[in-house]
Every structure is written in C-alpha cells, then in structure tokens.
C-alpha cells in the first residue's frame, strides 16, 4: 500500500500539463481524480516516476450544451455528470450510468476524462460514450485533435492517446429522445461490472456497447445492424458477443460472461424500447 517513490508536479492548466508530460515523457503520468491510477501505484502495478497533477485545473470541469452535442470537460467529476441538468435532458444515459461508477466517494473524486483515458474495459463510461457515438478531444503540443470513441481504444489500458497528450473534453451527441437502457451486473454495488451494457434506440438507429467483454470497450455492431434490419430484441441480443472477446476471471468464466452479455443486452434493449419508463 506504499507506492514506489515518485516526483509530483502540479499543472495549472491543460497547456501546462501538456508541457510537463512532454518534458518528462513516458515516465510521467497524469493524475486527475486518482481513482484508477493510485490503486495501481499502491499495489506497485504502476510505478510512474513523475505524477503531473491536473486535479486542480478548474477550467476543465464543465458541461455545456453545444447545440447538436453536449461537451463535458475531462475533469468533470462523475457526481457532476450524474447530476448535470444538461445531460439529464439531452444525454440521460450518460448521467444515469455515471451514478453507477464505483461508490459515492469514487464518484466525488473520479473524473470522466480520467476514466476514459485510463482505457479500462471494465470501466463504465468508456463503453457508455462509445455506445453514444461520442468523440474525445485530445490536446497535445501541436494543438488539439478530435478522435471518435470507436477509434480511441486500442487494447487493455491502451489508447491512441500519446504520452504528451491530455484528454480535455468529451463530446456526446444529444440523444434526441431515444429510448435507452443501462445494465451493470456486479457482485457488489461498488464493483467493476462483470458485464455491463449501454444501449439506446431511436427508430432504426441504435447504439449498443459492452463493458468488460474484451480488452477494450466493445461496440456490439452486429446487434445494432440486426436491429437496423428489423430484428427483434431477443434475436438481436443473441448476437451480443459477435465483436467481443471475453476473458475469464474470478467472477465469471468465458461461457458465463458470454451468457450474461446476451441476457443483459436483451434486458437493456427491452428497457430502451419500453416507452415512457426510465430505469
């Protein structure tokens, strides 16, 4: 529970943070809410030599209505995402799912940008934003680039984020009244999902993504295509794992995880297609 020794520097702005991680290179890690990185460091599974703390960069904490989408600052705490009036109105799936991240303490410290940048396939918000067709704004020494969620995640805890880049904003399309469902299957409320499903549908359009069903968050494209082709929910859900690559762990075998994904995709879609009810 004592991390290896490290240097600590605090950045006052996103630009300063970009400069600092550029200076220290691969040995540096950005520290936001600290609820993904610090546990790894305490177990000595991660030993960065420099921590660049961006936790006090206030201008990265916001939720803004940008017309066709909602812009969420990377340092917005889960609790603020959960309670945001703008998100509750325009992207209720994201607000709802944020309420299931960890426990209240985690939600008061952890940030949406930190959770996504960490690229843990077992985290909720990467898959939720993936299902919603979000894109992420990455700021680097040469400026910003905008990467669709579907192109961001590359493997377990890895993404296209360069060592000298900072994820500064999450852009989420408005849901336009789409029905939605979110299923998070856990042994305990505070746990990572054994399997999670975020889903929405509006007419022939839909978005379905899976938590903890592979080395990255998984977009269940086959389910979405089937729904677009007019398949029923029960049949479409049978395709839940077509893009997935589930692994076994202490809580679930591959077979059980596969089974759960199908059941939970079906349930999430049933909720999404049930008019006028929210979970």
């Amino acid at each position: 529970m004592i991390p290896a020794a490290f240097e600590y520097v605090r950045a006052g702005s996103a630009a300063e943070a970009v400069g600092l991680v550029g200076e220290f290179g691969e040995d540096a890690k950005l520290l936001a809410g600290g609820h993904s990185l610090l546990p790894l460091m305490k177990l000595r599974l991660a030993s960065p030599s420099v921590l660049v703390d961006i936790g006090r960069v206030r201008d990265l904490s916001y939720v803004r209505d940008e017309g066709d989408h909602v812009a969420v600052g990377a340092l917005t705490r889960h609790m603020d995402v959960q309670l945001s009036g703008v998100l509750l109105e325009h992207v209720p799936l994201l607000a709802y799912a944020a309420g299931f991240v960890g426990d209240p303490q985690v939600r008061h410290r952890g940030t949406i940008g930190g959770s996504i940048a960490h690229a843990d396939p077992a985290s909720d918000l990467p898959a939720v934003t993936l299902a919603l067709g979000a894109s992420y704004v990455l700021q680097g020494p040469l400026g910003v680039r905008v990467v669709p969620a579907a192109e961001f995640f590359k493997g377990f805890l890895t993404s296209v984020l360069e060592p000298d880049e900072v994820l500064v904003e999450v852009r989420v399309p408005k849901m336009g009244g789409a029905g939605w469902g979110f299923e998070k299957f856990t042994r305990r409320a505070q746990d990572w999902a054994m399997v999670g499903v975020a889903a929405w549908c509006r007419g022939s359009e839909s978005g379905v993504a899976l938590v903890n069903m592979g080395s990255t968050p998984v977009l269940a494209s086959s389910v979405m295509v089937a729904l677009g082709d007019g398949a029923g929910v029960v049949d479409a859900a049978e395709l839940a794992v077509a893009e997935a690559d589930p692994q076994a762990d202490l809580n679930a075998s591959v077979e059980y995880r596969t089974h759960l994904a199908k059941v939970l995709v079906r349930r999430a879609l049933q909720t999404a297609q049930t008019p006028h009810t929210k979970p």
Partner: protein
Amino acid sequence: MTVTEQAPSTDPVSGATVGRVIGQRLLRREDPALLTGEAKFTNDLAIPGALRLALVRSPYAHARILSIDTSAAVAMPGVVAVYTATDLASLWAAPMPCAWAVTADMKNPAHYPLTSTKACYVGDGVACVLATSEAAARDAAEAVQVEYEPLDAVVDPEAALRDEVVIHDELGTNKSYTWDLKVEGHPGQVDEAFAAAAYTVSERYVQQRLLPMAMEPRAVAAVPQPFGGDITLYSSTQVPHILKVMTAITLGIPEQQVRVIAPAVGGGFGSKLDVYAEELLCVALSRKHGVPVRWNEERTENAHATVHGRAQVQHIELAADASGKLTAVRVRLIGDMGAYLQLVTPGIPILGAFLYAGVYDLPQAYDFSCTGVFTTMTPTDAYRGAGRPEATYAIERSMDAMAAKVGVDPMELRRRNYIGKEQYPYTAFSGLTYDSGDHLAAAEMAAEMADYPGVRARQVTQNVAGAPKRLGIGVSSYFEMCGLAPSRVLASLNYSAGGWESATVRVLPTNKIQVVTGTSPHGQGHETSWSMIVADKMGVSPEDVVVLHSDTAIAPLGLDTYGSRSLPVGGVAIAMACDKVIDKARKIAAHQMECAEEDLDFADGSFSVKGTPERAMPFAAIAFEAFTAHNLPDGLEPNLEAQVTYDPPNFSWPFGTHICVVEVDTETGQVEVLKYVAVDDCGVQVNPLIVEGQVHGGVIQGLSQALFEEAVYDTDGNLKTTTLAEYLVPAACDVPSLTLGHTVTPSPTNQLGVKGVGEAGTIGATPAVMNAVVDALSGLGVTNVQMPASPHNVWRTLQSVSAEGGSR
C-alpha cells in the same frame, strides 16, 4: 427512602428487571473516540526512534530456498539490517506455539518466525529488513534476492492426504492428526441405526476458506524499557495475556519482564487470537538492537500472512426413523490446517465436534472423526464461530435434505426433532449438559415474523416452470455453545490453558469504581457493558465506573476475548467481585450503624436497616470510611476491593432460529435476499443495543460466507483474492435489512443469566441463506449449491442440472 418490595417486572426484550441498569439501551461509551479518530490504534502510537520491520515473503506456495542475497538490500538508504532465518536462529528458545495438541500423536512441524530451508505457503517469511522508515524497509525487502526451487503446491486437502507431495519432509506425511468422538449407548449402535433407518441422507459440503478481514490489519510495536531488560509489546491482538506468556516462552525472556498492551483494536474475528511471527520478530529485534521496532501489515499482506478461517470438507450422514426423528449421526471431516499449526489451528474443527447433532434430541449414536491435514496455503485458525458455524451448516443443510427425503416441510422435521423445553437441563449424547433452551418458541417466533406459511403459498404460484425468478425460504436452528470454557473440559480436550476469567472491582475514595478485567475488547463494547453490570450491582451510575483492560501490567490476570466468552465468564466474574465488595461494605455499614449484617438491606446504592429504612448509610459514605480507615470493624482491612477468578461450571448455550427468504434469478444466477429474520436467545441482555449490533455483524458475516466471500487459490498455490476488490466483503448497500427478534431464556449457571452473543449470528446465518437458495431451486432438481452462492456458481449449478435433465 423507598423500599421496593413489590415483585419486580421483567423487560420482555432484554429479560432484565425493569428499572435496572442492566437491560437498558445505553449508547456505547467507546464510540465517540472511535468515530472521531481520537482512539489510538497500534500504528497510531508515536514511538520516537522506532525502526520499521518489513518481511520478505515467499512468492511460491512450496519451494526450497537455495540462496538468499541480502547485499543489495543492505546497501539501500535507511536500511539498518537484513536478516535471514539463519541469522536469527539463536534468538528463539522455542518454535512458535501451538497450544492445542488435540491428540497425543499429532504431528506439528517446527515453525519459526522465518523459515530457513523451505517456504510452505505464499507469504511465508524468508527474510526481514529493519530500516528507518516503512517505505525504506519495504523497498529494501523487494531488493532481497532469494533463489527458490519451486515444488508442487498442495491446495486440495483431500488430495493432500494421499501424500503424493509431502510438505514437511521431517513428518513424512501431510496428515497432522485424526481425532475421534464416537458415543454409543451400546457398541454398534450407530451402524445398527443406519441399518434400521427408515430414511438416511449422506451429504458432502465444502466450507470454503475465508479471510477474516478485520478492519484494522495487524500492527506491532516492541519497545525496550529504560531499565533491566523489560520490554513492552504493543499489538493489535485479542489476547494480550496469552501473547505475554507465549512471547516469554518463545523468546526465553522471564515472563515478568514482558508487558503486552493492546491499544484500540479494530476487530479480530478470531484472527488476532494468535501469536504471530511479526510479534516475535519485533520483540527479538528490538532487544537485539536496543531500540523500538514496529511493523504494520498491509491489506494484501494481511490476506497472505494472517490466519484464514473455515476450510473444511464435510461428509455428514443422518439416520432417521419413519417419523423423521434422528436416530444416528455420522461425520467425517477433513480440516485444512494450511502450512503450519498456529496457536489453536488443530482444535478449531474440534470446537464443532459436539454440535453436528445441532439442537436435536439424539440418542447416544454419534460417530465423529476429523482429520487435520497440511496444505501449502496460509495456516487456518479461529474465525468467528470457530468450528461451530461449520458444524451448524452441516447439520442444518442435511436436515433440509432429510426433510426432502421424508417428504415433510423442513420446519416440521425440525419440530419433530427439537430438544423439548421440558427436557432441560438436557444431557446430550456427548455427556455435555445443555443448560436451558426453548427451540420451538424461537422457531415459531421466527416463522411468524417471516410469514413462513405465506412464503410457502407464494412459492406455489411463483415457482412454476420457466419462472425467471424463483422464491426460496430457508431455516436454520442453532446452538452457539460458547462462554469458553470450563477449565476441566478444556483439559479433557488437551487444550493447554484454562477457561477462567478474572475481575477486580476497586472502590475509589469518592465512590468512583475501577474495574479491572482480563477480557480484551476489540470492538465489543466491554467498557460500556461492564460498567453497566457494576452500576447495576453497586447502585452507581455507569459514568462512575471506569473499566481497565488490555494491558498486562494493569490487568495481570486474564484469558482474553474470543469464543463469546467475555460476558458469560468475564462479566460474571465482575458481578461476583461486586458481591464481594458489597459483602465487605456491609460489614462496615453494620459496624457503623451498630446492627447485625443480616439486618441490612442493600438497594439503590444504600444500606438500610430492615424495617426501619430511615436508618440508612449510602455506599459512598462507606467507601470513604473504608478509605480513611478511621472506624472499621476490628481486623478488617481498609479499602474496598475484591478480586475474583471465575471458572464457569459449563459452556453457555445461546440458541435461536434464523429464516431467510431469497429470490433467485434463474437467468443470471443472482441471489437477492428479500427478508432475513433472526430470533436469538442469548439469555439476559445486558445492553440490547450491543446485542443487536453483534447479531447484525454476525448475521452479515455468515450471510457473506453464503453469498460473497471465498479465498481463492489457483492450482499453483497462489492466493488470487488479495485485495478488497477481489475478496468480496459486502458493503451496507449489498446486504438486506435484518428483522430481529429475541426470546429470553436466562442461563441457570450464572447469576446474571447471561449467555454470550458474539458468534450467534454467524453460526445461524450461513445455513439459513443456503437452505433458502437451494429451496428456491429445488423444483429444478438442485440439491446443493457450492458456497459462495455467487451468480456464477448458481448459474453453473443450473446448467449442470439441466444438462442432466433434472428439471421437474
């Protein structure tokens, strides 16, 4: 002046006399300091100049140690010394203690704080570092280079008995002992009963390993005193007195030079009822270096280095006559000892040996045998209930199996078998006397609170073919068998110590009262409860009573806190010491009021002359007279103080019935507890609020074994559940609200009528939950679910019965 001659009424909840301090729901006086962080735990103590200890632990379950290179570690900043077992061999006068040789031929490998030639579990200490800071010590521990030759792990206790891989070469076998308890009215009665039985069941249950997970991991600080070689050992322990004796013996230090203090202790659940390597290392190295040495356990280290619990394979067979009445019980147990025998490791299964007939009226036809076996995993030892939850689980699960065989409702089968209220005191098959009980009353109260018939009716409509959620209800009736213990009974079990407890009650000049107890609380609220007992006896306010404990210099006599013994042994000792003080005070009162002792009544803190209550003398005045000693009876010593050592005549026998209602999602395997009813009878309740707290914690811990917790090892002997992310201790939102009820059957063996309650919830809960889970799925052909009944385990069970075509 009031004289209360009218018959006192009894409070229906606590069983205590109305108007007395005993029976009131007083808030715990311990809590403000604990809740505000003011309480000091061992690792909070400021100890100037202390060196920090860190252990180098084996990453292998079973490996020969080929070489150890400490040179890099020694060279690191802040490092004072690095030691291997060889370096420290001369410091030990004896191996680490096992105080319970259950059989004369029990095999017990020599176990030292550091192992020298072989590591026998992941976490076994192979070297240690002393450094000026904890970070420096831990960094250096990582730099110690140990060359191992890995050997095959032994993680299946049944396979271990085949001795294909022998862990302790010098023993030549993995079997530690076999302990038998066969009781028959006439030779052959058990076999005859099974041959003649109308119904038999034969069940196999696996008690998974559990991690005790006290909220405070262990911590130790050994502080040499300025003069004469004395040493003070601070430890997060349940057993400062036992630790003092064992430290003296193991290190060859004269006992009078060792003082053990347990500061605030954040829970133990039995895991701190032990003598650990780190305690002995801190003492030995602080003496060697002449400076304080301290050690603090990390959570992951705690998972490896603190004893585990349960870990048994149980085979139980029941025989019953045509009415379902039990006629014989046969049990074959395999107890997984882990790699070594810790303080009471081999005795844990034996503590349950008398309870495999549960609360049922069984003839003398009982055949129990337990084999203890070594494996390459962390040693097991006491964990809340220690043998009794396992026994209760086996009998209560197999009673449900028997009910299915007989074709009667599980509650009805229990009714036919309960020991009747009129049979008490009841001499059991084993020769033990159960002091009091009314099992039927507790069961009927629980059934009513759980709406048992209503749930059974709902099952008929809900549990139809294809139902996505099935309803189940489970019952468990239990004995706690606690108040450890009559010393002579412990002697008959080959336990090395007695079971008495000591108390001193001392009246200070201003009528404040000091109580010195040999119990050692670590969350139980003894300061509150003991002050209530004294207040009740002496007619003072609880605030006027201070309770001193957990320091062997202040409370030199004691046998500490475990096995729900503190109240029925230690609390009763305090009441008896109060009686002695009152008797002495009576002599002074009689002398000063010029009357005979027998003419005095003592009530509400005042002595008064019978028939003339206006002639009275308050206790406070007598206390001051005893202090000044100006006018005492001839030959009477000054001061009011009494010491009592109480050896209980019997165990105490709390009992009760728990009922659990669950709904099982047959698609996902998820179990949801809809209702949990616990009716417990712990005799008279000193403080019902504390009783409820104990039942809450106990039930959740038992439910947690049923649904959440498991120490998982892989086949290489690696513990996979080493953090609270993998080892699933539930949080408040993950467990149901509990519905509690109580019956009160005062213990006839002690003056307070108390029985103890620390383990009752844990003992009752696990089988109640699992019976409910199996009941929910019984219509699908399920007869057993392996604990914990995780979604995965439930799903797998459903898959296997549907593959077998078991649906009906």
